[in-house]
């Protein structure tokens, strides 16, 4: 809303505006916007051999066409989509299910469940990565023993070590860690649905399943859409878990390589491989563009169709 201004008296300079905005803007621009732009800018240069020369889009062309680079790039991108797909298929539905259960009327202990289930989300990847490696380790044998106990022992395998299963396993771990976020957000939306509307559905003869499907679900769709976009952004920025568990080489045979790890290797190098700031910046720029395009597509095709409802 407008601060009323008064043409008759001299309009004073809006100092309060400056004071409210400047600190945040200053810190944000200095320590985030500027460094990011600086880095993205780097992608137009070649910094190898110590001095930097302007090369235009050459780095991007190399990245996409040169076999050495493009192979790794497409592989990482594909894996990243896979990673995202698994989150969409698992994390959000599980979050939804938990949120729905948590919001059941008159549920006792719901606060306790909520807090406990949110716990993994609070922990650092260092801890998460280490713990799950232990649990899934064939040497320690916790998972194996557990599976034997429920009669599925022979299905056990060194999941984290197999090309076919490593990425999926890591995705599961990530889902396990972050399921609390969709859960919380959806739960909050569910709490906001007025009881009356649900009661009206009940009186209209809808059973709980129908109530969920026809009434609650459409009303939490906007939240689910928001959660999806957050998941997308987070997944395409993902790095820590892979790095903590599989290292920067994202083995076996790059089967767990994501854009994040690919960027890391390129930018900082790895073991005997030298890092290249300019190529790294090019990867970063591409990551940024992918996320931007993804978000835009989403806003354009999905968000527009979803209406928010006032109760």
């Amino acid at each position, binding site marked *: 809303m407008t601060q009323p201004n008064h043409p008759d008296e001299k309009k004073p300079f809006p100092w309060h505006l400056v004071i409210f905005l400047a600190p945040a803007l200053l810190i944000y621009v200095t320590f985030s*916007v500027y460094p990011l732009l600086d880095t993205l800018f780097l992608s137009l240069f070649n910094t190898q051999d110590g001095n930097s020369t302007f090369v235009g889009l050459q780095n991007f062309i190399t990245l996409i066409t040169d076999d050495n680079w493009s192979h790794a790039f497409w592989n990482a991108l594909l894996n990243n989509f896979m990673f995202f797909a698994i989150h969409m298929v698992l994390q959000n539905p599980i979050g939804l299910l938990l949120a729905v*259960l948590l919001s059941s009327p008159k549920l006792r202990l719901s606060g306790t469940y909520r807090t406990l289930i*949110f716990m993994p989300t609070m922990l650092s990847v260092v801890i998460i990565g280490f713990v799950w490696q232990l649990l899934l380790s064939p040497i320690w044998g916790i998972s194996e023993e557990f599976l034997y106990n429920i009669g599925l022992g022979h299905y056990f395998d060194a999941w984290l070590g197999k090309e076919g299963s490593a990425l999926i396993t890591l995705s599961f771990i990530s889902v396990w860690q972050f399921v609390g976020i969709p859960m919380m957000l959806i739960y909050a939306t569910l709490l906001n649905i007025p009881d009356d509307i649900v009661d009206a559905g009940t009186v209209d003869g809808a059973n709980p399943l129908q109530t969920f499907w026809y009434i609650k679900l459409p009303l939490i769709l906007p939240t689910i859409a928001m959660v999806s976009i957050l998941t997308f952004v987070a997944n395409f920025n993902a790095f820590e878990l892979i790095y903590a568990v599989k290292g920067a080489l994202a083995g076996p045979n790059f089967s767990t390589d994501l854009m994040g790890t690919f960027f890391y290797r390129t930018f900082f190098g790895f073991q005997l491989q030298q890092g290249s700031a300019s190529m790294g910046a090019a990867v970063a720029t591409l990551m940024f563009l992918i996320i931007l395009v993804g978000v835009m597509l989403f806003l354009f095709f999905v968000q527009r169709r979803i209406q928010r409802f006032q109760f």
Partner: protein
Amino acid sequence: MKIVTGFLPSSPLNVSKSVTVHAILMAYTVIALFPIIVVIINAFKTRKAIFNDPLGLPDSDSFTLAGFQEVLLRSDFGLYSWNSLVVTLLAVGLVLLLGAMAAWALTEYKFRGNFLIAFLFAMGIMIPIRLGTVSILSLMVELDLANTLTALVLVYIAQGLPLAVYILSEFVRTIPKELTEAARCDAVSEYKIFFCIILPLLKPAMATVAVFTMIPIWNDLWFPLILAPGEETRTITLGVQQFVGQYVTNWNSVLSALTLAIVPVLILYTIFSRQLIRGLTSGAVK
């Protein structure tokens, strides 16, 4: 949320329904907690016992505090925790304050550039600040802030602001504008309006922002490593990570270190969690 029923709902249909709900939630709670509990249990066991009976509780034979001793003697865990606490609290506090101020300015006042600034902040949600590491580091060096906690705090503020501004703006919109108008009629200055009226009303939203900002800051490994790896400025996550690297085979020390690192974050979480759901349900993140 009203809890109104007696211990058992009276109709059999309801009983079976609520048993199912509890069963599923309980099962998932176990899944969520099991790994954490395994870590904690084993932190109190000898190395042999960890291997031979990973799920067993420590008994008189296997119980040991050696891991904790090692951790507390071999590394300055107190200092690390303190550093983490200082950095996290300062950064979260400033993110909240500056974020709220910016969110207020962006939603309450119309001025040229309003949209542009809001958009600039929104972009920050999408791009990981880590991409700018090298520039950030050079900047910190120029400002003579390398290896200081200040550097970390500044970067974390920059990292946390976009989401904070976004969430808080949404929330500021839900504050009835009559409140500010009433205050303006009362001759209250714009600053006082913000600090005496808006800020107290933003509390639940701030709890939400605090939790979402705190998690990545507390757990961050990257910037402490790059910006402040010195012994004096080491944070707890970095400390643990180095400890894990250093004692990678000494599992009961590692597990003890992990256990020690879990504790503070849980304390912080419990401080905020009560307000969290209030913040979420009062419309900030919808």
